[in-house]
């Protein structure tokens, strides 16, 4: 009987301690309710701001297309139609712009979407469960080695001067911050690119336990890839490149 009493007393003590903890925690929770309400208000505000910025982006992109067309038409207008040399120069410029990735292009291709593991927990999950710059660079190399002729990451066109690297939890591309999910668009031989991705051992492994990154690859027939969006930075991109003389070129040997 005494034993029973003791057990009951110990149980009651434990229950009371636990109740105390819960009560204390609840008190803290109630106190932080105000900040939680503020949090919800901040989320709502950020969502509205994002929608507004997305609308502005759309307008800016449309404006750019119209201005670019206006400039191209104007050049043809001011040039002498009879002068073949001048027209050739404009055609050459148009061709170089296409080669350099400065124009919007369309064609059959694929959209690859990669994202961190769902509900990634930095304490429990391996670091490979989040997407790093190296994962993106690897994927781009894979696509180019399989015939991709134009590639973009989250609608940022990959050109000769593109540098891709991690800054905290975001990836910087063309000096612009991008966040997951990373949508990589590539125009090229669809089947070849898709087969290469489906059979790639690294991405197959990353989709399995314990990494479980999210990965999808969808062929699209009329895929549109943006032109390089910051042509005004080209001067900086080639700041240290001096044109080589014929003599210097001749001296190159391999």
């Amino acid at each position: 009987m005494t034993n029973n009493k003791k057990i009951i007393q110990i149980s009651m003590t434990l229950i009371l301690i636990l109740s105390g903890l819960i009560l204390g925690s609840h008190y803290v929770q109630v106190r932080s309710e105000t900040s939680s309400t503020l949090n919800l208000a901040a989320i709502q505000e950020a969502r509205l701001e994002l929608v507004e910025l997305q609308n502005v982006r759309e307008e800016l992109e449309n404006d750019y297309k119209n201005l670019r067309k206006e400039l191209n038409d104007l050049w043809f207008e001011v040039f002498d139609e009879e002068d073949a040399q001048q027209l050739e120069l404009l055609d050459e410029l148009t061709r170089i712009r296409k080669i350099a990735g400065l124009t919007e292009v369309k064609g059959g291709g694929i959209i690859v979407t990669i994202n961190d593991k769902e509900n990634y927990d930095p304490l429990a999950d391996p670091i490979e469960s989040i997407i790093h710059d190296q994962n993106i660079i690897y994927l781009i190399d894979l696509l180019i080695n399989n015939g991709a002729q134009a590639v973009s990451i989250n609608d940022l066109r990959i050109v000769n001067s593109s540098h891709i690297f991690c800054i905290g939890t975001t990836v910087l591309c063309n000096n612009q911050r991008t966040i997951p999910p990373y949508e990589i668009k590539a125009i090229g031989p669809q089947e070849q690119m898709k087969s290469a991705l489906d059979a790639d051992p690294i991405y197959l492994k990353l989709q399995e336990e314990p990494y479980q990154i999210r990965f999808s690859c969808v062929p699209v027939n009329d895929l549109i890839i943006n032109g390089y969006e910051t042509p005004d930075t080209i001067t900086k991109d080639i700041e240290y490149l001096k044109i080589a003389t014929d003599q210097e070129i001749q001296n190159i040997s391999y």
Partner: protein
Amino acid sequence: MRIRNLMVKYGAITLITVILGISLALQIKTSNIASHESRDLTELQNNVRSYAEKNAELNDRNKALYSEIEKLRNDQLEGDINYQDILAEQEKLSVFAGLTAVQNSGVTVTLGMAGQSMITDSYVRLVVNELNALGAQAISINEQRKVATTEIRASSENIIINGVAYPRSEDFVIKAIVPPDQQDSIVLALETLKNALKEQIDSDQQIEMLISAEQKVVIPALNEDSIAYKTNLLNPVEDHE
């Protein structure tokens, strides 16, 4: 009577324990919701920052384009079209696209394998990507200009670069033009990469990397008919699309 008392006591304890369990579960759930909210907010704020930065850049770009149009219109009205502008633009874009040979100070990396081992394409890509991330403005591999769509892939005993095969048993010479004030730090970063690679690879498959800073590096142009410049699958986008 005693049995009844005991039953009441045990019943009360059971009830308290159940209530306690439910409160505990609710408490955990509330904490989880709070943590999710906080994560959502950070993600949204990152997104907002990213959009705002990009929009500002796009706005500047449109302004520059608008000024260009205005200038051309004025020149047209005054009958003073400066064709040098378009020639300068052509020259600039030609350098950017890799269609013109360029030179300046830079670094050279000679990549090879000790003994009978053959070099893999991934090492060549690794060095090229590292140079790119370090801010190289022009890169060549065995005098093949590296552009955005340059393929670097192994095929049996060769590595194919811009459609040209180079034997894997021979050294690969990678040249890069880099910002002159960063030349030393770039050499240092490449030395760090070399040491990291040496630690990773088996001792009987040692990688050899010779890194040197150069006063003058010449990077050749890539021929316009190179496979890397193929655009046969790229169609222009019509205005209404």
